[in-house]
């Protein structure tokens, strides 16, 4: 199929690869960026007038739960990737805590078939560290890698067994696979529901200590140092974890980290009132942590912003707080939340934002995305930076509606999402 030529005219081009921030045109041909700069005289099938708009690489969201196979009532690869397009995301790393879990080449095959048939964007594959995510027996890590997994994780849980985790890191190191750590010591977090502290006291709910997170981050970093494995800390939520990661980076340990929009936007006081859409794991932390997360992003200690998009049916959310499921959706709001909370107040520049949402995660995953240089695949998002919109439940394209940003006014609207050189979504 011959692909159309698309010209994006006169936008502010933000390319984190080479710190490029200039007004100009981008020409797309055959799925690639063929020309950047002044494209006067070029003919195109489609012209996107981008004056006053931001043109940057589409998001690479490295932490997404698409729920398929297994919980197609909450989300499918088709619905999740449609939601992603609306949010300006064209690559996602699908978390393997599906049913069946992605713990074998056979299950990768099963998932790949669904992706091939139904995905609207690129869905990247992540395998599990242990079989069935039980934390008891290692998956065949080399086989997962050979079959196309870009990383392994038992996300949802941490592997408690130190010896087993050490072996996993050694295996991953051997075959050059990234290990994504959901760092949580369940013995410490127990059946807590909110951040431990005055908030848990006020609500009369069991608390989840910060210690349950950062002690496990410290263990995982220590193991990375010892084995030389490349690791990535998922959903960093507290100050102490950032400090540990900063020290590890100084020591040149191969660690990267991500946080999610809710951790730099909301603090645990948002839970007062028992809104189960404010329940996630790790939980919303204190104000001090929220500030530390922003600072961590600004300094680049936290490399990436990822949604931890976690769809849940209303029957799992509209119940008693302590019984309600952890997690929120985020694909459709993450970019706008990041613009509103980070770019707008001057915490991150557009370039820094583009690094956190596309360039860095692409690099961490080892894929050729997150840039707008000539010859790069045309994965582009065009944003109307000053356009305001309100998050509405009815507007979500995701099958689930469990957003912690309902009714929030956001600044920055995705108006075009281009994937493989084609406009896949436009407002």
């Amino acid at each position: 199929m011959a692909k159309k030529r698309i010209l994006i005219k006169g936008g502010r081009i933000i390319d984190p690869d080479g710190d490029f921030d200039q007004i100009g045109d981008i020409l797309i041909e055959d799925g690639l960026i063929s020309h950047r700069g002044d494209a006067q005289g070029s003919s195109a099938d489609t012209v996107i007038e981008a004056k006053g708009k931001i043109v940057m690489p589409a998001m690479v969201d490295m932490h997404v739960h698409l729920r398929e196979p297994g919980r197609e009532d909450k989300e499918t690869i088709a619905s999740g990737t449609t939601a992603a397009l609306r949010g300006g995301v064209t690559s996602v790393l699908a978390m393997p805590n599906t049913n069946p879990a992605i713990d074998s080449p056979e299950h990768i095959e099963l998932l790949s078939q669904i992706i091939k048939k139904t995905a609207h964007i690129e869905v990247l594959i992540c395998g599990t560290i242990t079989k069935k995510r039980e934390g008891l027996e290692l998956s065949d890590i080399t086989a997962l890698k050979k079959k196309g997994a870009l990383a392994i994780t038992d996300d949802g849980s941490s592997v408690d067994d130190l010896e087993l985790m050490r072996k996993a890191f050694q295996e991953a190191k051997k075959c050059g696979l990234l290990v994504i750590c959901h760092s949580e010591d369940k013995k410490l977090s127990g059946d807590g529901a909110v951040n431990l502290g005055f908030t848990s006291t006020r609500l009369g709910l069991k608390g989840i200590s910060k210690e349950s997170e950062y002690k496990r981050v410290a263990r995982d970093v220590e193991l990375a140092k010892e084995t030389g494995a490349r690791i990535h800390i998922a959903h960093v939520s507290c100050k102490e974890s950032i400090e540990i990661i900063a020290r590890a980076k100084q020591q040149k340990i191969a660690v990267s980290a991500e946080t999610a929009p809710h951790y730099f936007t909301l603090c645990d006081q948002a839970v007062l009132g028992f809104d189960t859409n404010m329940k996630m794991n790790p939980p919303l932390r204190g104000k001090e942590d929220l500030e530390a997360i922003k600072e961590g992003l600004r300094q680049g200690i936290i490399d990436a912003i990822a949604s931890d998009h976690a769809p849940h049916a209303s029957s799992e959310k509209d119940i008693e707080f302590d019984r309600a499921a952890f997690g929120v959706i985020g694909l459709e709001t993450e970019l706008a939340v990041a613009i509103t909370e980070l770019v707008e107040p001057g915490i991150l520049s557009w370039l820094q934002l583009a690094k956190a949402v596309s360039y860095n995660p692409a690099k961490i995953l080892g894929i050729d995305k997150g840039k707008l240089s000539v010859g790069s695949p045309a994965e582009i998002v065009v944003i109307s930076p000053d356009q305001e919109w309100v998050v509405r439940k009815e507007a979500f394209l995701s099958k689930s509606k469990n957003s912690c940003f309902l009714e929030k006014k956001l600044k920055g609207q995705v108006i075009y999402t281009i994937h493989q050189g084609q406009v896949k979504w436009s407002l």
Partner: protein
Amino acid sequence: MRWKRKDLLDLESLSLQELEYILTTAASFKEVTGRQIKKVPALRGKTVVNLFYEPSTRTRVSFEVAAKRLSADVINIAAEVSSVKKGETLIDTGKNIEALKADIIVVRHSASGAAAMLARHLKANVINAGDGWHEHPTQALLDIFTLREKLGRIEGLKVSIIGDIAHSRVARSNIWGLTKMGAKVTLCAPLMLIPPGIEETGVKVTDDLDQALSEADAINVLRMQFERDEAGAFPKAWEYFKTFGITEERLQKAKKDIVVMHPGPINRGIEMSSEVADGVNSVILEQVTNGIAVRMAVLFLVAQAKNGKKANSN
């Protein structure tokens, strides 16, 4: 003032003015209940449903008597928290009750936030009769009512709350109510039973009972629920009595006219000795009597607020 809240879910979100208003209203209802004919027609034609997911004869009966004295019809539902996911949810149950044209739902539930959740989804008035460890607003209101009746004021009083604060909704509601009204509150418990950050409410914390007793104008002694001790955090019952139990001997060092309260039911010989429970300082039975007046006030007031609006944002 005019009462605007559709629901009574907690004391944390109430203003001082609202607290005073409930207490004043309760005082006028207490006067009514002292008469020969104890009934008033204030809620005639209204239906009050007591939806209790935890067995609590005292609170349920107290609400029932209160509602009947206001001439309301009362329906009691003893429900069970379904452990199976497929069971009817709390919201379903609430909506079903509402469909039966209930006007006020009084709910007791083991989950913190259960009353708030119902209130968000229902047009009926919701009164929290205790949710998990969160709040038990009418219990604290009746404690404060009793205290004020006994000592004439709340402002400036020194009140010590003794026992398992961490797992107590009674303690939380008392802390919010008392501190808002200007009392100086001290919490006394083994430190592992003090919840984190509680000092931010303005209370003092100690694990020295003699200190908690020494200057107190009143003490509120909580029921120790040893059966709830999952984590093994509690001391043994006899050990607890030795260190934190209220005995006549211990009270010798306190103010002579110290007011002794307990939300009931009492574990005699664990939180306090029988001599103290039945002694001259004890107001435990007056608390029970006042509970009716306070609950009449709360039922009456929420019924004044417009039905059909969304819950207050508390």
